[in-house]
C-alpha cells in the first residue's frame, strides 16, 4: 500500500486509521460497561440542570449568531472594514475588476 511519505511515519493514514480503530474499540468497550437497565421516557432520561426548570429545546440550543461572540466582538473593526466592499452591487464588482487588471498590467510592465 502506498502512503504519503514525508519522512514522518506518524502522518501515515494507515497508522491513523489503526489508531482510530483502537480508540473506537476502547470507547465501545467502556460504553458497553455502562448501565443498561434504565427506562427511556422517564425521569431517568430527563435533562437535569441543577434542579431548575428545564427550558424548552429551542432555548437550550445556542443560536449560530451567538457562537464565537467574543471573537467577533474583538474583531469588530476588521469586520466593519470587510463588510464595506461586500455591497452586493454588481457595478462595484466590475470596478474591482478594472482596478485589478490595471494593477496587474502595471506590475508586469514595471517588472519586465
Amino acid at each position: 500500500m502506498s502512503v504519503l511519505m514525508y519522512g514522518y511515519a506518524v502522518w501515515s493514514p494507515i497508522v491513523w486509521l489503526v489508531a482510530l480503530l483502537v480508540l473506537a474499540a476502547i470507547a465501545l468497550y467502556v460504553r458497553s460497561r455502562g448501565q443498561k437497565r434504565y427506562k427511556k421516557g422517564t425521569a431517568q432520561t430527563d435533562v437535569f440542570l441543577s434542579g431548575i426548570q428545564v427550558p424548552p429545546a429551542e432555548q437550550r440550543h445556542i443560536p449560530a449568531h451567538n457562537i464565537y461572540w467574543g471573537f467577533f466582538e474583538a474583531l469588530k473593526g476588521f469586520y466593519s472594514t470587510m463588510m464595506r466592499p461586500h455591497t452586493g452591487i454588481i457595478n462595484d464588482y466590475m470596478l474591482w475588476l478594472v482596478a485589478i487588471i490595471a494593477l496587474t498590467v502595471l506590475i508586469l510592465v514595471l517588472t519586465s
Partner: protein
Amino acid sequence: MEYLTVHSPILIVAIPLLAAFIIPLLSRLGSKVRDTFNVSLLGFVTFLVAILAIDIYANGARIYTLGASVPELARPEGYMVPVRIMFQVDGISIFMGLTITVVALAALVYSLQFVKNETGQDRFYSLFMLLYVGMIGLVFTGDMFNLFVFLEILSIAGAGLASYRVNLADAVEGGFKYIVISAVSALLVLFAIGILYGQYNLLSIAALANTMQFNTLDMIALAMLAIAFVMKLAGVPLHMWAPDTYAVAPAGITPMIYMSSAASMYALYRVTFTLYGGQFDTMPIGWVVIILGVLSMFIGVMMAIYQTDIKRLMAYHAISQSGYMLLGVGVGLAVLTDPVALANYGRDAMNGGIFHIINNALYKGMLFLTAEAIFFRIGTRDLNKMGGLAHNMKWTTIFFIIGALAISGIPPFNGFASKLLIYESVFRFNPLLSIIAMFVSLVTLASFTKVFYSAFTGPEMPAYREVREVPKSMIIGMGIMVACIIFFSIFPGLVVDTIVAPATDALIDQASYINGVMGAAP
C-alpha cells in the same frame, strides 16, 4: 476499444452535447426514461474518461483534430501551423476531466430526487449536460478560441441553472450576477485572444506558445486573461459574486458551478504555464497569483466564520480553499525558471495545489450537498433556526462530519494530505505564507464546528421531530463523493503518483505540449 480510445476526446464532448438536445424529447416518454437515460449516458461518459485517462498515463498526451484524415494529425499537409479545431489532452487536462466527471456524476444522481417535484426538469437536465460539456471542452481544448467558446457555454448554462428556482428572488439575482461576471470575463478573454491573434495570426495554444515574444501587448493580454479567470474562479478581491450565486443554486448545481470555477483555474494555469511559460521571468506573475491566493484564503475564511446562512458560509469556504490551490501552484509558477528551487519545493507545492483541486472538489461538493439536504428537509438555510438534526438525519450528519474534517485538514483525511504538501513546500519558499495557510485551516475547523453545533447537535427540536433522512438517490450522490474522499484519504501517495504528478509535469513541461502539436508529423 482502440476506436473508443482514439475518438474518446470528441465523444466525451459530443455525447453529452447531443444528449442536451435529446433530453426534452425523451422527457415526453416519462421522467423515469429521462432519468435512466441521463445516468446511463453520464456513466458511459465516465467510462470514456477513464479509458482516455489510462491511455494518457500510459502513452502521453493525446491530440484530436476535428476534420483531419487522422485525428492525431495536428497540422494539415503543407501547413506550418495547426488551423483546425483541436483537442489536446495532457496530464492536467485529464486530471481536470476526471475531477469534473466524478463530481458531475454524483451531482446528477443527487439531483434526481432533489428536482423531482420541480417544473422544467427537461430544461434542468439539458442545461446540466451543457454545463458539463462546457467544462470538459474547456479543459480538453487546444486552441484559444474554443477555450472562449466553451467558457461561454459553461457560463450561460451555469447562469440558467443557478437561477433555476425562479420563484426565489435571490436565485434570480444570483443567476444574474453570475451571467454578468461571466460575460465580462469572457469578453476580456476574447479581447485578449484578439490581441494575440492580431499579432501572431494564431489561435492554437501550442503554436502561440512557440511564437510568443512577450512584448507589451502580450503583457496586457496576459493580465486580461489571468484576471478574467481569477474573477471566474472567485479569487479575492473578485470573489463577491460567489456567495450570492453558490448559495442560491439548486443542490446538484452548486458543486457543478464550483467545478466551473475550478475549470477557470485550469485555464489560468494553462495560460500562465503553457501559453506564456518560459518566455519571461515568472516570479512577478507568480507572486501576483500567490498574493491573490493568500487573500482568498484569509478573507474567504474570515468572512465564512461570520455567516449564519449555511450555503453562504460554504461558498466563502470554497473561496478560501481556492486560495490554497492558487498558493501552491503560484509558488510553482514563481520558481518555474529556477530549476533548483523547482526541484526542491516548487514541484511539491504544485503537487499540493493540484491535489487540493480534486480533494476540494470532492469534500466541498459534498458539503454543499449536505447543506442542500438540510434545506430539502427543513426549508431553511439559516443556522439560527436549525438544531438537533443529527437525531433524524444520521447519514447527512456522518457525511457532514467527514467533509468538515477533510476540509479542515484533519488527518487522516485527504484534505490533510494536500495541505501538508502545501505547508511544507510553501514554508521553504516563504515561512509566513505557510503560517497564514495553517491559521486559515484552524479558522476553517472553527467555522465547521460552529455549523456542526448549530445544525446537528443539541436537543431534538419540536419543529423538526417529523424530519426524516433525505431520499436514497441523494444519499447515493453524497456517498459517491464520500467513497472517493475515503479512498483518497487512505491512499494519498497513490493518487499523487498516479494522477497529480503527471498533471504537474504537464504544466511544467511546456516544450512537450508545444512539440506534441508543432512536432507532430503527418
